[in-house]
């Protein structure tokens, strides 16, 4: 298994500002994912951040709005840029262990973001 921590756990931000969320894993992993869970909604994948390659964004998400860094095999950041109230969500990172994309994913505790 993997133990994942996220910082901050929650934040309240003003519109137009940016917030960077950190995801730290206790072991080296190739596959890292960033999800968003809007209020009352399900989890939606924002992007896949595999070390050694550029992040791959899902339809509806763009790098300018959600830049991602993946400097090594245990760490990643997601920035929510130029925030608006619609960005108020829980942001989660997850990791897949091993080399198969079909392995179980382990999730972080999430970052609860409120944009005023």
């Amino acid at each position, binding site marked *: 298994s993997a133990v994942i921590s996220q910082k901050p756990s929650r934040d309240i931000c003003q519109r137009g500002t940016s917030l960077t969320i950190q995801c730290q894993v206790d072991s080296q992993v190739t596959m890292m*994912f960033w999800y968003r869970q809007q209020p009352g909604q*399900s*989890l939606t*994948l924002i992007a896949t951040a595999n070390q050694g390659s550029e992040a791959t964004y899902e339809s509806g998400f763009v790098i300018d709005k959600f830049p991602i860094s993946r400097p090594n095999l245990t760490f990643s950041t997601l920035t929510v840029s130029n925030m608006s109230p619609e960005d108020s969500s829980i942001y989660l990172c*997850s990791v*897949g262990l091993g080399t198969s*994309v*079909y392995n179980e994913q382990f*999730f972080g505790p999430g970052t609860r973001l409120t944009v005023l």
Partner: protein
Amino acid sequence: AQRVTQPEKLLSVFKGAPVELKCNYSYSGSPELFWYVQYSRQRLQLLLRHISRESIKGFTADLNKGETSFHLKKPFAQEEDSAMYYCALHGSGNTGKLIFGQGTTLQVKP
């Protein structure tokens, strides 16, 4: 389109009653399906996956390709089963992407 549907937002049962949380999917090909659970104040975690054909905490789920369903069942609900349950599908394209259903809150009353 690849999609997961959980028709019930809330399922409330009494302790000892049978439980069935419904999940239907839309996917062309052989699906990889999972049930994830989130207990109060805990993170999302895997409950079971169809490929393992295992029973976890008394829960089972059978893939029915004809009905495109992957319902989660337990014969006798316990209060500690109260949680949010998500059905998830591995998307195509060898990316590891998970497609989640809307989630069902299971409430087991004493």
